[in-house]
């Protein structure tokens, strides 16, 4: 099941990080996700839309799952990978599992994200790594990350350190 990350994985993760930067530029939280098929074809792309919708479940990864699942057959999703600019939270990790996607590649790690947000009570997370959540899943998951962490971190730092927020 496990498949080590290759150059195509890193290129797709870079796309997810670019989506996270675009999200921040458009006034959303700085998170992006891309779902790609086994051959690298992009199946879905999503940003966080929490700010514009007021729906605090609209994380990038969950949005990508909601977008892809009705359109893409389960066999394709079972071979797909989701690329997330930051490590999926407990909600998104669960949503990814429910979608049938079994492979995750993420950029910025949850521990560092939590440290970056430590002073902001409203953004406190649940404190779970996606590996810990998915260790409880009924099927094995193939999880890779942090990857390209410096690139992913730069987008996070630019957003969260901006004094106006």
């Amino acid at each position, binding site marked *: 099941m496990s498949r080590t990350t290759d150059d195509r994985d890193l290129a797709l993760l870079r796309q997810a990080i670019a989506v996270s930067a675009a999200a921040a530029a458009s006034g959303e939280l700085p998170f992006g996700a891309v779902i790609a098929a086994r051959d690298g074809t992009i199946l879905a792309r999503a940003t966080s839309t929490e700010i514009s919708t007021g729906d605090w479940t609209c994380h990038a990864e969950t949005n990508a799952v909601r977008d892809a*699942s009705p359109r893409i057959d389960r066999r394709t999703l079972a071979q797909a990978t989701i690329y997330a600019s930051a490590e999926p939270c407990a909600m998104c990790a*669960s949503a990814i599992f429910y979608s049938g996607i079994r492979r995750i590649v993420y950029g910025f790690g949850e521990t560092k994200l939590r440290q970056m947000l430590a002073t902001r009570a409203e953004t406190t997370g649940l404190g779970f790594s996606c590996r810990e959540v998915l260790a409880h899943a009924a*099927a094995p998951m193939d999880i890779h990350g942090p990857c390209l962490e410096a690139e992913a971190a730069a987008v996070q730092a630019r957003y969260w350190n901006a004094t106006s927020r």
Partner: protein
Amino acid sequence: MQPDDENFLRQTFALARAARAAGHRPFGAVVADAAGIVAEAGSTQTANGDPTAHAEMNALRRAMAVVPRARLEGATLYASNEPCAMCAAAAFYAGVARIVFGFPEEKLRPLRNRTAAGAGIGLSCRAVLARPARKVEVVGPCLEDEAALLHDGYWSEATA
């Protein structure tokens, strides 16, 4: 449980029965406070649809669409069944103060088919909510015998 809890929980049972009658999974959820019901929903999850459309997720998303967050911070999520890890996390993000549930997950799991997607994530709602400083109170199982009837014959007949 508080005085209105039984009434709201029984409403989730009615929603679960309606969901089952409509061809969906037998789960229902209500978001409510002292002023009454804010939002309610059944499961609309299907094999080829949105896999996140659990009853609790649906009810929370409707609630966020219709009332400000400040009101949800005084509200309770009622669920006919113990919320899964995803829905517990969604309740935290939505900001509700409490969760009251009917049937416990540990008793549902043996009733369900054993495919990977059907068996889900074995992380309890309480475990998901244990770490943040902002606490979500979890009450349940409640009215378990009534909640159990919602599943009577369902999982052995379900093909999805």
